[in-house]
C-alpha cells in the first residue's frame, strides 16, 4: 500500500519503514489469565472515569459442560497505521505521532464524538464533567495513548508493566531485534477486524476468533451481561447527555417513543449547564 495517508496533517504509516519507529504491542492470550490488573492499573494511572475504559477485558465461555473453556481478550486502542478517527476528526484534535502513537489533543477537541463513531474498536470515550481531579480534561474525547509519557521516558506502558502473566509485550516492531518483532515473526498473530483497513498494531497470539467477532459479541451476550448493559444505560449520567441509548427490552411503539422523548428531554435539560463548559 503505497503511502496512503489519512488527512492533511497525517503522518504516514511507519510500520516496516527503515529509520522510523513503530511502537506495537503483542498480547499472548495463552498467557493472559484475565486478572484485569491492566484494567485497574490504567484506570488508576489516568483517572479514567466510571463507566469508561482505556483498556478492558472481554470474556467469553465456549463449549458444553464439562468441556468448557474461558477465553479472554484484553482490548484497547489499536494505534492503527491508518486511523479512521484521525481522518474524520474535524479539528485535528487527534493525530498520529511519527512513532506510531495515535494521540489526542484535549485543548483542540470540541467533543463532537465523530472519532468515536469512526472507530471500529470502540476504543474511544468521552470524558465526563465529573472527574476525580477537576484539573483533568473534561467533556472531550479520550483514548489509550500507549502510555506515551512513560514510553518516552524509557518505561513500558502501565498495562504491560502490570501484566501478571507476562502476556503483554511492547516495543518497536521495526527493530528486528526487539521482543515484539521476534514474537510476531515466530508466532501466528491476529489483529482485530483487519477487514476494516485500519492496519491495527496490537497483535494477538492465540486469538479465539468468535470472541473477536462483533456479531458473536452481540448475539451471545449472557443474560446477566445484557441486564447489566441496560442498567448501565439507564443510570449513566453521560448517557443522558449523549441522548442516544436505546434499552432493548422496551422497543414497542410506545417504548421507542418514550425513550426518544426521554432522551430529548435529558438533552434539553442538560443543555444550559453544558453550554458554558468550553470557557473553563
Amino acid at each position, binding site marked *: 500500500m503505497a503511502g496512503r495517508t489519512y*488527512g*492533511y*496533517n*497525517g503522518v504516514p504509516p511507519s510500520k516496516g519503514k527503515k529509520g522510523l519507529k513503530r511502537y506495537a504491542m503483542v498480547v499472548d492470550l495463552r498467557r493472559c489469565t484475565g486478572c484485569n490488573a491492566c484494567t485497574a492499573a490504567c484506570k488508576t494511572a489516568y483517572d479514567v472515569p466510571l463507566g469508561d475504559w482505556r483498556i478492558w477485558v*472481554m*470474556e467469553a465461555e465456549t463449549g*458444553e459442560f464439562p468441556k468448557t473453556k474461558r477465553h479472554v481478550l484484553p482490548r484497547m486502542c489499536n494505534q492503527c497505521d491508518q486511523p*479512521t478517527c484521525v481522518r*474524520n*476528526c*474535524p*479539528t485535528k484534535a487527534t493525530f498520529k505521532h511519527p512513532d506510531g502513537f495515535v494521540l489526542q489533543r484535549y485543548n*483542540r*477537541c*470540541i*467533543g*463532537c464524538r*465523530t472519532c468515536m*463513531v*469512526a*472507530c471500529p*474498536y*470502540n476504543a474511544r470515550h*468521552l470524558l465526563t464533567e465529573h472527574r476525580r481531579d477537576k484539573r483533568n480534561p473534561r*467533556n472531550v474525547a479520550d483514548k489509550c495513548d500507549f502510555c506515551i509519557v512513560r514510553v518516552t521516558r524509557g518505561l513500558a506502558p502501565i498495562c504491560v508493566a502490570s501484566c501478571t502473566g507476562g502476556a503483554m509485550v511492547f516495543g518497536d516492531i521495526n527493530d528486528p531485534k526487539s521482543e515484539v518483532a521476534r514474537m510476531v515473526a515466530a508466532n501466528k498473530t491476529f489483529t482485530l*477486524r483487519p477487514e*476494516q483497513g485500519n492496519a491495527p498494531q496490537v497483535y494477538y497470539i492465540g486469538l479465539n476468533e*468468535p470472541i473477536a467477532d*462483533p*456479531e*458473536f*459479541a*452481540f*448475539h*451471545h*451476550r*449472557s443474560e*446477566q*451481561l445484557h441486564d447489566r448493559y441496560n442498567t*448501565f444505560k439507564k443510570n*449513566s449520567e453521560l*448517557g443522558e447527555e*449523549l*441522548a*442516544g*441509548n*436505546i434499552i*432493548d427490552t422496551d*422497543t414497542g411503539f410506545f417504548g*421507542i417513543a418514550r425513550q*426518544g422523548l426521554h*432522551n*430529548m428531554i435529558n*438533552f434539553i435539560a442538560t443543555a444550559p449547564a*453544558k*453550554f*458554558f*463548559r*468550553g*470557557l473553563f
Partner: protein
Amino acid sequence: MGATPMDGQMIANAFHHAYWGFPLSLYFWLVGGSAGSFVVSTLGWVFGVKKYKPIAFFASNTAIVMLMIVPMLLITDLGKPFRFFHLLMLPSFTHWSAPMAWGVTFILTYPIGMLFYSYFVYFKNERMARICGIAAIILALCTHWYTGVVMQLNPSRLPNHASVAPILFLTGAYISGIGLLNILLWIRNFFVETKKRVRTSILADMGRLMLYGIVFDLFLLGNEFLQMTYGIGEEHTILYDVLLGPFRWPYLYIEIIWGLVVPLIILAIPRINRSRYWVLAASFMVASGVFGMRVWWVMATQFLQGHF
C-alpha cells in the same frame, strides 16, 4: 442468526454508549426538511415552473428558519459547546479530510445564499434570484449530501457505509421537505387573505412531486437491502434489528409502511391524490416517516457495535 447459544456466551465486556443520538437524528431531519423546502422554492424562479412562483418566498423562508434551529442543536450537542469556533475555517484548526469540516463550510454558506435568494424573490428581481437560486440550490444539496457522507465515512458502521447513503439522505430530504412545506402552506392559508391562499391544485401538484421521490426512495432502499441479504459482516444482524429487532418501529413501521407505502398508495389513486386532506395526510406521513429513517440510520449500528 449465527451460532447457537451452546457455542458460547459473552460474560464480560466494557459498556459503550451510542455516541450520536436523537439530537443528531433531529438535526439530520431538519437539514433535510430545509433542503427539500428550498428545492420547491427554486422550482419557480430557477427552473421556470411558473405555478410554483407564488410559494417560493414562503418556502425559502421556511428553509431558512429550519436551518436556524440546526446550529443550536449541533453546538449544544458538542461536549464543549463554546469551542464550536474551532470548526470555523481557521486554517490551523480545520482538518480538510474530515467530512464534518466540509459540512461546516456548507452550513455557514447555505443560509447566506438562501437569504440573498429570498431578498431578490421578494423584490422580484428575476435575474439575480435565478443566479442566487442556482448557487443556493447547489449549497442546499451539498449541505444535505454531507450529512449522508458524515454517516457514510464510518467504515465499521455497516448500513451507513454505503455509497447509496448520501443519495438516500437527499431523497429523504426532498420528500420530507415537500411534506413539511405542504402542511405549513395549509396552516398559512388560515392566516393570509383569500387571494394569497395556496390553491389545492398546487398542494396536489407538490404531492405528485413527492410521489416521484417516494418511488425513488423505495427503489434505493430496495437496492440497499437487497445487498444486505448477503450478510457480509454484520449485515444480517442489522437486517434483524430493523425488521424484527429493536429498530423495527423506526424502520419497518414508521419509515417503510407509514412513511412510504401508505403515502404511495394515497398519492397514486387518481381522484384521492387531488383531494386536499388526503394529500395533507400523505404529506404528514412522509415527513414523520423520514424522521424514523433518521433515527434508525443514526442509531442502529451504534446500538449493535456497543456490544463489541
